[in-house]
């Protein structure tokens, strides 16, 4: 591995979607850097460009302009060798485990799928059991179907699949938003413990500053395709400079000390 190269580095990312003659800049000049061990939160509301960034960082979408470097090398979707390595190392957990897990596949093949499709050698059945255990599930669930599990358990299955290929970057796209509050904590704690245990660098995309702040050392705040504020979590939370960041911080629904009566 190259020394001192950031894992991800994007320069002036622009993504334009056009429809019926008019075009929209979903991303409008985004520079970001992900360094090893420094988890990054990407925060913004709907239409901010969160999903577009994510698609580009996952190598699913090409930017209209600008570059994405992965370990110093430009990400090239046509480069099979690079992409195979890339897909082993960068994995994702989506928002809703109801739709991200194939209902017709058994848990064992869901979790083992990256091992097959990325042609990762070794005892894949053993690996599947290992990662299921790592996310707090009984390895014997391999023969069951996703709809036999609760939302939180399904998200654990999705996380097990994501870590099966031993990634170095784990991307979470609103990974707890679809879950019940009491389950959210368990999944956040799981992310935290996997982050430490497996040395993962996280990219967490969310509309929820509180959640991102609990897991990420750095944060960028996106609005209308542009970064309105970026920096380390402590500075952003204690001394936000953009009005929009302040507004987001204020909208975290904390308990008030008075109640309607």
């Amino acid at each position: 591995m190259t020394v001192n190269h950031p894992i991800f580095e994007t320069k002036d990312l622009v993504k334009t979607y056009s429809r019926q003659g008019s075009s929209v800049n979903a991303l409008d000049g985004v520079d970001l850097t992900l360094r090893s061990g420094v988890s990054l939160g990407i925060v913004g509301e709907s239409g901010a460009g969160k999903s577009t960034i994510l698609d580009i960082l996952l190598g699913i979408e090409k930017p209209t302009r600008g570059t994405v470097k992965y370990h110093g090398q430009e990400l090239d979707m046509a480069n099979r060798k690079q992409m195979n390595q890339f897909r082993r190392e960068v994995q994702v957990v989506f928002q809703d485990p109801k739709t991200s897990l194939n209902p017709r596949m058994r848990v064992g093949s869901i979790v083992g799928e990256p091992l097959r499709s990325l042609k990762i050698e070794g005892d894949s059945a053993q690996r599947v059991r290992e990662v299921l255990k790592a996310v707090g599930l009984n390895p014997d669930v391999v023969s069951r179907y996703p709809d036999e599990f609760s939302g939180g358990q399904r998200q654990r299955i999705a996380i097990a699949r994501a870590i099966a290929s031993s990634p170095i970057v784990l991307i979470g796209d609103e990974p707890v938003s679809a879950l019940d509050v009491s389950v959210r904590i368990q999944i956040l704690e799981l992310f935290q413990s996997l982050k430490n245990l497996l040395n993962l660098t996280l990219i967490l995309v969310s509309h929820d500053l509180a959640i991102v702040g609990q897991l990420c050392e750095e944060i960028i705040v996106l609005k209308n395709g542009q970064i309105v504020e970026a920096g380390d979590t402590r500075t952003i939370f204690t001394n936000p400079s953009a009005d929009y960041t302040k507004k987001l911080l204020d909208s975290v629904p904390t308990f008030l000390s008075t109640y309607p009566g």
Partner: protein
Amino acid sequence: MSLLSVENMGISLVGPGNMLVEGINFSLEKGDRLGIIGESGSGKSITALALLGLLPGSMKVTGRISLAGTDVVNSSERDLVKIRGSKAATVFQEPLSALDPLMKVGRQIAGPLKLHQKLVGEAARREVYKLMERVQLSDPDRISASFPHELSGGQRQRIAIAMALACKPEILIADEPTTALDVTVQGEVLLLLDKLVKEEGMSLIFITHDLPVIARVVSRLLVMQDGHIVEEGSTSNIIESPKHPYTKKLIEAARTVTAVPYVNEKIGKRK
């Protein structure tokens, strides 16, 4: 007599007979603001639907529900239509699915006016504009001529609220009215609901999984788990000294997930 009283209500699946909700008792007086809190599967939403006789045919209600003098459980659909919107109206979580995608929103707001108050034409239009002003939608000409997909989530929810207010209901039932909205919009819609309920002198039933949100709006809380009410009381009592382990767990969870590191992490610390 209470505006709404629910006695020993149960909801079961027709056929297998599994009880989804059981032994629900509560009442609502004029001007009350009641919250029902619970997680998915707790039965809070079907409880709300049952109040207006809106449950799907696959579910059956037992017990008694009396809404402004109407026996909801034993009334015909024709009688229920008369009370929906006029005695009690609802605002649901997802305004995009609550609104008709093929109808301009102005006409949708006018719908209940025509049904319950026989308002049409210019009189209806004036009332629609008045309602849009009540929910703080500016530019009524443009908005009333828009289809739902042309509006933002916040605007759509305001339209849904305007529709709910149209016939001056005595009770507003809001089921996760802010959950699908962007965080910065959530606060605005919540404030709006709170203000309207007070100004119109409505009673409110607010249903959500989000304790910090509900604690800002309602004065009394029912906590539901697995189809049962496990705890009830004033909002301040429940949040400050919860009795039931499940309530404690919910509050703890809410404090943790809303803890902003470096800012209010102290209140979020567990153990």
